[in-house]
């Protein structure tokens, strides 16, 4: 015989009702339980008449299981409440995403950056080994996450409480909604800035960076290695292409697959060129300032090594930019005509 079985099968009903009562508010407990009890007894009575005998414990168990878990049964009598209701829930999720993206992700990236590039930070945190460092960062991250998400949840729960009483979110004005936006539309101001910046960069680049000797003063002289000429022409060409694309965008301010693909190609090429430059030991010589030849070589090497160390960051940035560019191409390709200002604005493909 199991631990829960009893000599009187009807005792199961009392136990069930007691379990339901536990979850009910005191003021309604007696009333609800009396009615529930009556309903159960009516059902069992009817079954008893049908069978011509009293129900055994197993049969009563089946009846009670059909009724459902006590906590669920009790819950149906309670008013439907939520910590954050349907009005605030989408805003809550939006804020959670913003917190994750603008606070928690940078936290992780900053930690990775510090561990990668700051030898003193690394030494301080890897005294218990790498696993220990990751473990302590993981627990610190969880603590930060818990505090950040907890604070947002408490704030929204409080807002929900105020909203339920005052209904302040019901007061809204369609005129105050942001203007309808076509994601494939290119802001003209952005194109103007892009043209100007690329042309200014080109002029400055030709003026300052065309010669391998980029600084030649009595106190200091900086000379770039012969490989620099590839970077010089490469970056100049990319700046010109970008200026042309921005000029076309200015005239026809809507992304097309061709222009979005050119942007992906130029950004990809710029990232690749930049990575190559960091890794190529582009700085050939630093002299002057009373530096001895050995010391000058040491400084030159240190600068080249320092530049090479930033490669992962540049590479990661390049990948992110390429993904954003690829997403733009996909968006332009899959664009459907949008009804804006009463006219059909067809996507240009």
């Amino acid at each position, binding site marked *: 015989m199991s631990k829960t079985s009893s000599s009187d099968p009807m005792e199961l009903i009392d136990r069930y009702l007691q379990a339901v009562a536990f979850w009910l508010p005191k003021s309604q407990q007696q009333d*609800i339980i*009396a*009615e*529930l009890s*009556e*309903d159960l*007894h*009516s*059902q069992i009575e009817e079954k008893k008449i049908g069978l011509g005998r009293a129900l055994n414990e197993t049969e009563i168990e089946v009846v009670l299981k059909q*009724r*459902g878990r006590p906590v*669920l*049964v009790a819950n*149906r*009598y309670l008013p439907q409440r939520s910590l954050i209701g349907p009005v605030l829930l989408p805003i809550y999720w939006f804020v959670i995403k913003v917190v994750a993206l603008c606070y928690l992700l940078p936290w992780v990236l900053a930690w990775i950056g510090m561990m990668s590039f700051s030898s003193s930070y690394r030494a301080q945190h890897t005294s218990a080994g790498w696993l220990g460092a990751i473990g302590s960062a993981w627990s610190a991250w969880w603590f930060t996450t818990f505090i950040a998400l907890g604070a947002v949840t408490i704030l929204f729960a409080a807002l929900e409480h105020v909203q339920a009483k005052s209904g302040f979110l019901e007061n809204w004005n369609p005129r105050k909604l942001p203007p309808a936006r076509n994601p494939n539309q290119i802001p003209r101001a952005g194109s103007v800035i892009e043209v100007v910046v690329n042309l200014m960069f080109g002029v400055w680049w030709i003026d300052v960076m065309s010669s391998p000797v980029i600084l030649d003063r009595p106190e200091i002289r900086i000379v770039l290695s012969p490989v620099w000429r590839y970077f010089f022409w490469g970056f100049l060409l990319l700046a010109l292409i970008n200026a042309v694309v921005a000029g076309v965008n200015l005239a026809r301010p809507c992304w097309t697959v061709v222009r979005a693909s050119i942007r992906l190609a130029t950004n990809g090429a710029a990232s690749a060129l930049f990575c190559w430059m960091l890794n190529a030991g582009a700085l050939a010589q630093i002299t002057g300032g009373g530096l001895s030849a050995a010391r000058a070589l040491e400084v030159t090497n240190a600068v080249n090594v320092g530049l090479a160390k930033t490669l992962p960051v540049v590479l990661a940035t390049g990948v992110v930019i390429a993904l954003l560019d690829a997403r733009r191409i996909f968006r332009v390709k899959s664009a459907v005509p949008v009804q804006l200002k009463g006219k059909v604005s067809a996507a240009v493909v």
Partner: protein
Amino acid sequence: MTNGTQGGPEILENLKLELRRGCLIVAVLAQLRTEQYGYTLRKALADDGLVIDEGTLYPLLRRLETQGLLVSQWREEDKRNKRFYRLSPAGEQILSQLLEEWQNINSSLSKIVEEAPL
């Protein structure tokens, strides 16, 4: 590509529940034009083809009573205390308005379905 009938039965069940929810209130109010207690009410509804589980019925009865559409009274019958419900005067008014609304919805729906047959 759409995912076709994936989750079909579950979706159908949810839609049926939504469809039934409003109808149940009308049915309960209509049934309680004659005084009944919970168990017999449930049986009467089931006999007429509208099965409702007790976990839905009793909270609904309490809500309708709180809204003043039903009145209830504890009384002894067959040696057991039972709570009898019936429609209140306010409930009668609401029921007639709900029935009128239901007729309107029903005729609109019939027209729509006739215009666009399956």
